């Protein structure tokens, strides 16, 4: 008889909620009962409020249980083996509304496959994109990526195909692909989940990028806060080398490509591509003035493609399924899907991959189910620490690059952080400035000095000192930072500050919106 196959997530989120205790309890129970089981470590399906969520393979497909804790296993073990009844039984994961409503394109395998097995990756459609890429050749790969409409998921939304074309056109003996896995934006974890749950997908995407632009070497720059992702990617790269996916003859072709990991050291600004490149070269991570662009003069002075994890990990499926499938999804000029990351005080917390175009209200109220605390939603910060705070009045905003920009916001890397009515928006504005002061690379004065001044000014406003004067000062300061900063750290930090002030004036001691002026 084959052993029952039990799937346990080894995703940092699931581990933070007790997945390793579950695995230990499963092994103890197995010994105690003398029933052999097979434990397969997967990533997370992304339903974090149900983690640790474990699954068993049955004739009727996989059956999930969650949230499971170590102490549940004694009672759960027997029904689990058959997918039988238990209060924690969730049924087939694909039938859960949160998953059923998604378009899992980039995250199709995450939480499903054995993340360490290249064979399992292949069984679930992996390497089809690379096969097609090899048959197409570089110009046609770039053409396909361009036609898909894929835009960079790191935040700036720059068309990936165009970036690849510039690098392909640059002449140099050595070119590089650099994968930006710095994922510094608070409220985001899609890169982490993908690296921990489907590492070969990222490797495949990077290899395709290398072939397309003529690079033979790649780096993945992973933030140090992600030890599990670093571990999983390191093992996956070793496997890819032994199995011939990386090395002298990539997947049996004439292409050469190798990949190394570099670990960040706790600097938010190193997610900015030029700062990342300096850090990769072993320097302080200061932002470089552009031009030259990285596509012309990037890592070690050579032409370099810098792309976010999700941008690169979307490429294998785009090539496997065809550009049209991707391009036909989406909204306006934002094509394809985006992993929306519901975070903070929200009931159904997790990763929701969907075509662009859902409204913010649908995302927060409908998919997210409102707050975890059960209190009313008051503010939602979209796009990380440099993203604007949205009040309920703007919940009709469509999730796409242009729609958010039109409302002085950004979708960034797709993080959506929900706050209930206990939030103090003056404090949030102060934090935005404080964060900028802590993380500024120090190159330009408006950012370096302005952010520290910003904290002081907000403090004075909170204390009620010469409020009108200080409010004007804050506006001026934001204006200076907005237009006098070299990069988006200093340049965009006014978004959270000004949005907090505009939509939640009562928290700054001013008259509420809609009320008569003081």
């Amino acid at each position: 008889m084959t052993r029952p196959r039990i799937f346990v997530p080894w995703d940092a989120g699931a581990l933070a909620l007790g997945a390793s205790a579950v695995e230990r309890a499963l092994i103890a129970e197995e010994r105690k009962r003398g029933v052999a089981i097979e434990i397969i470590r997967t990533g997370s399906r992304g339903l974090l409020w149900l983690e640790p969520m474990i699954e068993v393979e049955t004739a009727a497909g996989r059956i999930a249980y969650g949230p499971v804790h170590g102490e549940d296993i004694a009672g759960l073990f027997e029904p689990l083996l058959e997918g039988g009844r238990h209060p924690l039984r969730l049924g087939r994961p694909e039938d859960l509304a949160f998953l059923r409503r998604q378009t899992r394109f980039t995250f199709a395998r995450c939480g499903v496959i054995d993340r360490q097995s290249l064979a399992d990756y292949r069984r679930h459609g992996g390497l089809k994109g690379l096969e097609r890429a090899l048959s197409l050749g570089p110009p046609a790969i770039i053409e396909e990526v361009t036609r898909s409409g894929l835009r960079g998921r790191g935040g700036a939304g720059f068309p990936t195909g165009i970036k690849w074309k510039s690098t392909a056109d640059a002449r140099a003996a050595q070119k590089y692909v650099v994968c930006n896995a710095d994922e510094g934006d608070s409220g985001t974890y899609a890169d982490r989940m993908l690296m921990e749950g489907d590492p070969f997908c990222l490797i495949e995407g990077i290899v395709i990028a290398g072939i397309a632009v003529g690079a033979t070497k790649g780096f993945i720059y992973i933030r140090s806060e992600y030890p599990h992702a670093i571990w999983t990617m390191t093992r996956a790269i070793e496997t890819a080398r032994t199995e011939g996916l990386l090395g002298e003859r990539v997947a049996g072709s004439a292409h050469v490509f190798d990949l190394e990991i570099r670990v960040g050291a706790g600097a938010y600004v190193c997610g900015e591509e030029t700062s990342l490149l300096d850090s990769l070269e072993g320097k302080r991570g200061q932002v470089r003035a552009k031009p030259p662009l990285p596509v012309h003069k990037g890592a070690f002075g050579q032409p370099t493609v810098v792309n976010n994890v999700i941008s690169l990990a979307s490429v294998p499926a785009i090539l496997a399924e065809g550009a049209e499938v991707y391009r036909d999804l989406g909204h306006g000029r934002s094509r394809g899907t985006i992993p929306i990351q519901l975070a903070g005080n929200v009931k159904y917390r997790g990763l929701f991959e969907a075509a662009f175009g859902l409204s913010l209200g649908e995302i927060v109220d409908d998919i997210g189910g409102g707050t975890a605390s059960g209190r009313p939603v008051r503010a939602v910060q979209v796009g990380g620490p440099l993203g604007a705070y949205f009040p309920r009045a703007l919940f009709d905003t469509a999730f796409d690059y242009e729609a958010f920009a039109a409302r002085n916001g950004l979708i960034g890397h797709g993080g959506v952080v929900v706050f209930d009515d206990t939030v103090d928006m003056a404090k949030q504005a102060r934090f935005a400035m404080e964060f900028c002061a802590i993380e500024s690379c120090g190159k330009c004065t408006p950012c370096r000095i302005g952010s520290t001044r910003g904290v002081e000014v907000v403090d004075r406003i909170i204390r009620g000192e010469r409020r009108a004067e200080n409010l004007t000062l804050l506006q001026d300061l934001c204006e200076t930072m907005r237009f006098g900063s070299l990069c988006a750290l200093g340049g965009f930090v006014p978004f959270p500050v000004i949005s907090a002030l505009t939509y939640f004036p009562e928290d700054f001691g001013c008259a509420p919106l809609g009320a008569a002026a003081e």
Partner: protein
Amino acid sequence: MPTGSPWSVERGEEIICTHKHLAGAALPILHALQREFGFIHREAIPLVARALNLSRAEVYGIVSFYHDFREIPPGRHVLRLCRAEACQSMGADALAERVRERLQVNWHETSADGRVTLEPVFCLGLCACAPAAMLDGRVIGGLDQTRLLALLDEARR
């Protein structure tokens, strides 16, 4: 990890030697040194400088630029509490207050008994299980006061 072995020039040189062939070796070397010794010892700076053909000032500039690198030894355990927005929305600020009270420390400081160093971190990618923390290498999500204080007691035992 956090305690680290006592500083030794020979061991330091050895570590530098195993990593210096890497492209952009400074960060890999500094990470490896910190993994071994728990911090970047003052005496390591000229060694790194020599190996990478940099000035001491340049190496010091790198060490001081990155939040990860410590210039003084940490306590037996390092507690990194997330201070970023998703964790704030679930009460991280109040938790941090309690921890600082209990340990009688400020951010970046070590408790008087030398057991716990408290460090801020801006997002651990555990924003859907906020508030989140990392105790040494271990990730912890969905923290509340009771769990956090129990964790501290465990670390201080």
